[in-house]
Each structure stands twice: as C-alpha cells, then as structure tokens.
C-alpha cells in the first residue's frame, strides 16, 4: 500500500477530531473577522426599517430544535429589531416540535425588550393543518387561532386590534427548516392575501429558495448562521451568530483542505497506476 492509498483510507476519527477542534478553538479564542452584509439580508432589514411604528409583523418560526443553531439566532435578531421599532409582533409556528422553543425565544426577547404579552406581542402557538392554517388565517385569523398559546382569547388581545386576517399584516417572515415553510407561505399566503413576505432558512435549503428571491416572490432571504450574523451586524447587536462565524470559517477551510488532499492522493494513485500499466 502506497502513502497516498494509506492516506485515503485514514481512520475517520482523525477527521472527526480535526472538525471538533476547528469548531472548538475559534469558539474559545474568537478572531472576529469583518462580516460583509449580502443584498438579500439587507433587503429584509430595510423592509423592517421602512415599517412605521405600530405596523403588524408576523414571525412564523417554522423549525424544530434540530435547526436551532442556525434559525434561533435569526429569530432573536428579527425579534430584537421588531421590538426596537415598536412593531406589533405576532409569532406562531407551523412545526409542532418547535412550539416550546418558539415560545421561549419570543418570551425571552420580549422580556429583554420590556414588551408585554397581549399588548405588544402575541404568541399564537401551533395549530394542525400546515398550509390550511395559512389559508384559514388569510380568511379569518380568529377562526384559525381562537386563543393564543396562553389560552387568552385572541379577539381580546390589544396587539391584534384591527387585524382580521393576513390581509391586515404588513410583513411576514417565515424562518423555515424545510416544508412547511417559506414556499408554503408564498403559495397559500402571499399569492392570495397580498402581504409582503421575507424568509429565513437553514444554509442547506437556502440555494433552493433563490428562484423565489430573484422573482420577487420573497423580498429577502436570511440564509443560515451567516445570514443571522449579517442581521446581527445590521441591528448593531453582535451575538451568538457572529460568535459562531469564526468556527464556521475554520470548519469550511478544514473541509476545503480535506477535499484538496483527497484529490491530490487520488491523482497520485491514478498517475502511479497508469505508469505501472504502461510498463
């Protein structure tokens, strides 16, 4: 067995250790490189900035705990921005396993921003049906959610005054880890009820949403941890997403290095085999 062959069949635990260290070391010793803001993230920020005080902002946290590292920081940044702008915030989820986490993040950021439940924001919780929940909200929000997560009748909530359906919402952002998510909000919501829609998603599904972005079906897109870090930079509150970018830089470089090494060894084996064949 040649050196190249031996290197290609290296124990994968060495690779695991390398990735572990590339994640851990930058978290312990952050470098803090500058983060460039992309136009798609800026578009979400600019639209939020353009909303006058008291506008209705609906945040749909359509993800489960598996996507927490990427989408939770996005939710925190968006909620901070919305509360800072004194927007009326309606939060909900279309993913049942994400209900507890969605409640926790909304309550935590509201508490930190000194906002009151029912007056400044409402967490509607989860309702079964996926796309039909969106249609139902578009027809009559109070039929889709007769009570909020804390069993308060939604008709009595001050924050929902004047809001009868999705037609009365100024901006909807869906933070999605898959389906049901951004596409569902577009097809069953924006297309019929004519509200502006933005999106946030995991890095894995972001490339699949670019056609919606380019055609204006969504006005902006926050993609992965990088997108969350960009939003944190825009609102001037650097937090866990920015902190995680150094680790992401290191792991990306480690994977690039591994891919290069793999090809170097692969071509060296191929060349040597060809040479043997010619002889």
């Amino acid at each position, binding site marked *: 067995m040649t050196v190249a062959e031996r290197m290609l069949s290296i124990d994968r635990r060495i*690779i*695991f250790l390398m990735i572990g260290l590339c*994640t851990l070391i930058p978290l312990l010793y952050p470098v803090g490189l500058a983060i460039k803001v992309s136009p798609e993230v800026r578009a979400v920020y600019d639209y939020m900035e353009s909303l006058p005080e008291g506008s209705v902002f609906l945040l749909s946290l359509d993800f489960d705990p*598996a996507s927490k590292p990427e989408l939770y920081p996005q939710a925190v940044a968006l909620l901070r921005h919305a509360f800072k702008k004194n927007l009326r915030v309606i939060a909900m989820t279309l993913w049942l396993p994400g209900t507890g986490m969605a409640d*926790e993040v909304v309550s935590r950021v509201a508490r930190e921003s000194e906002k009151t439940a029912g007056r400044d924001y409402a967490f509607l919780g989860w309702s079964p049906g996926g796309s039909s929940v969106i*249609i139902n909200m578009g027809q009559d929000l109070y039929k889709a959610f007769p009570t909020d997560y804390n069993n308060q009748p939604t008709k009595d909530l001050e924050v929902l005054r004047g809001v009868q359906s999705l037609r009365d919402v100024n901006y909807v952002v869906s933070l999605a880890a898959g389906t049901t998510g951004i596409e569902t909000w577009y097809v069953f919501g924006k297309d019929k009820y004519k509200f502006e829609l933005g999106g946030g998603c995991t890095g894995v599904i972001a490339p699949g949403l670019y056609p919606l972005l380019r055609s204006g079906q969504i006005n902006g897109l926050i993609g992965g941890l*990088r997108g969350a870090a960009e939003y944190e930079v825009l609102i001037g509150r650097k937090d866990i997403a920015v902190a995680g970018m150094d680790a992401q*830089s290191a792991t990306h470089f480690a*994977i690039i290095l591994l891919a290069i090494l793999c090809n170097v060894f692969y071509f060296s084996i191929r060349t040597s085999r060809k040479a043997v064949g010619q002889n």
Partner: protein
Amino acid sequence: MTFLRRQLPLLITFVTGILFAVQYYVPHPLSEQMLTSVSKWLQIIGGFALVLGVTSLFHIHAVKIRRRESGWGYSVVLYAAIVATMAAGFGYSPAAGQWINGKETIKGAMTAFGWVYAYMMVPLQGTMFAILAFFIASAAYRSFRARSREAAVLLIAAVIVMLGRVPLGEHLIPISGDITQWILNVLNASVRRAILIGISLGAVALSLKIIFGVERAYLGGGKE
C-alpha cells in the same frame, strides 16, 4: 358497496376539485365563506392525522416487542419515552394549579413537559443534527474527487461557495464573496427554477388526473 368505495369518492374528488380550482378566481363573499369553512375542516382533519400517526407508531412497536424482533429493546425505550412524555404532557402542575395540557410553560413557569422538551428533546435533536458536520467532512475526504469533468466543475463551485460564505474566505480572497453571489443568483437560481417549473407542471398534471379520475391510487385496494 362499490358505489360507496369507488364512485362516491371519485364524485366528491371531481366536484370539490373543480369547485376549489374555480373558487380561487371568484372573490364573492359566498365563495370566500366556503373556503373559510373548508380550511377549518382541513385543520381538524390535520389534528386527526396526528392521532393516527401516534396510534400507528404504538402498534408497530408493540408488534416488534411481542415478536422479539431484532432491536426490540429500542422499541421498549421508545414506548417508555412516549408514555412518560404523554404523562408529563397530560399531567397536573401543582405549582400552576392547573392541568399542563401539553404546554411547555404556564404563566412563564416551566412545566414537567417543558422540562422534558428543553432538557431532552432540544439537546437530542441538536446533537443529531450537529453530528452531520462530522460526517460531511469525512464524506468530503473520501468521495469528493474530480473523477470526471462534471465532477471537477462541481468541486470547484463547491470550494468557491464554501470560501465565499465565510468571513475568512472573503478576507483572504475578497472576490470569492462576489463569485459566490453570482453562482447562487445566476447559475443556481436558473437551474432551480427549471426544476421548479418541471415539478409544478407535474403537480398540475397529477392534480388533473386525480380530479378526472384517471389516477385512482389514492382510493387504495388496487383492484377495480
């Protein structure tokens, strides 16, 4: 019986399919009222799907345990976890003085169900997803090889996007960010759009086949 099993479902599918395809273009209050009612029905049916899912899960694992099939021990763990979580979810909270009713928090205080969610489900799901990074790195090392011209193009594009999506890449090679944006916005978006159009046309064709009774697999049974 054949009428109830075959003709009636086909008739209902045909009538509702045509009705709701037309409904989209009719903004009359009556049409909107009809949509409101039906979307509420769909929500209720969605709730029943949950019950069906849990029942099916219980049944499959009960059979596994009874027959002592390979890995039946995991089924016991799953059973114990479901029962314990359900007990926590349906239980009574003495601190809040009310039934938990599937809530993670009541008046800001964490319930037993919330504890299970926050300290078991969230870390477990997070760990499962985090492990992916390690396997991706291992797979990249073993299989990301430029075996053909197409594979080489994919490899180069992947390296550029990986560089352009992190601050270190943009710091070392400033143009990598712009090239990444171009790859995502032009190459990726156009290919994805073509795929989306294909999928959508397929969905329209399938819907028409279901509405007109050409496609009947959803009726089950397999026999006419």
